[in-house]
């Protein structure tokens, strides 16, 4: 079967992009208007992009985990494409977290970096999934999808460690419970909604590459070889 992008794909993608960009713009505007936290000051406004990006990272890698299992069970290339696409978007979100975190820490904790549980486990997460892309890009054989799926499953082990790190280990600088005034809470919720829809829009966009890659591979195998049907000299 020739892999082609469904017609509704582009329409849904455009609608999601419009909603995502509008909501991100609204969340930025709300962040600028949100109350200034007493102890940390204006730098605390990083929370409205840092926390949604961190949660989007975990969701993206969670999708990679589920899609990797589905690929190994079905051997359908679309599951592998979903896993790789979600992993790539998760890496961008994780990079946002890795940059905004130290900027916030420099002001709040007076240090760019400290080896506290959440930072350490998140750095390990970033390195593991960077490795996923390096290994995947270096493989061209049929085993690429299988090896990628195994990585997508094995690396997921680190996600609960990131999530629970502040409860399971001592010395965490991240607070276990955060109390916010209603205006701050609403701004954070809008930010989370905005970046979740942004993730969905980006995922649909990235999946188009998988369709095109598969279509090109299909046309390469379906096309006759250059010498086929010609008289050999």
């Amino acid at each position, binding site marked *: 079967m020739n892999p082609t992008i469904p017609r509704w794909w582009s329409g849904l993608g455009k609608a999601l992009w419009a909603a995502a960009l509008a909501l991100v713009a609204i969340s930025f505007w709300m962040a600028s208007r949100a109350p200034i936290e007493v102890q940390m000051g204006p730098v605390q406004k*990083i929370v409205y992009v840092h926390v949604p990006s961190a949660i989007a990272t975990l969701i993206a890698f969670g999708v990679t985990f589920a899609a990797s299992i589905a690929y190994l069970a079905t051997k359908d290339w679309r599951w592998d494409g979903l896993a790789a696409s979600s992993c790539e978007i998760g890496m961008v979100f994780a990079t*946002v977290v890795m940059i905004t975190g130290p*900027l916030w820490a420099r*002001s709040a904790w007076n240090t760019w970096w400290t080896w506290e549980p959440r930072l350490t486990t998140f750095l390990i997460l970033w390195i593991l999934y960077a490795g996923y892309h390096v290994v995947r890009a270096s493989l061209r054989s049929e085993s690429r999808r299988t090896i990628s799926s195994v990585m997508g499953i094995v690396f997921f082990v680190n996600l609960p460690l990131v999530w629970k790190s502040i409860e399971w280990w001592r010395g965490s600088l991240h607070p276990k419970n955060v109390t916010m005034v209603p205006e701050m809470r609403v701004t954070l919720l809008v930010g989370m909604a905005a970046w979740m829809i942004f993730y969905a829009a980006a995922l649909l*966009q990235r999946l188009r*590459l998988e369709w*095109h890659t598969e279509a*090109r591979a299909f046309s390469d195998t379906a096309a006759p070889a250059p010498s086929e049907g010609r008289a050999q000299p």
Partner: protein
Amino acid sequence: MTYAIISYLVTVVLWIVWGLATVARERSLRGE
């Protein structure tokens, strides 16, 4: 305040770079 502004700018720039790279890769695959 400076760090907060830098954080938002870095976020926007990262996603723009990813978006441009993704569109370029799609065009390349389509042979445009």
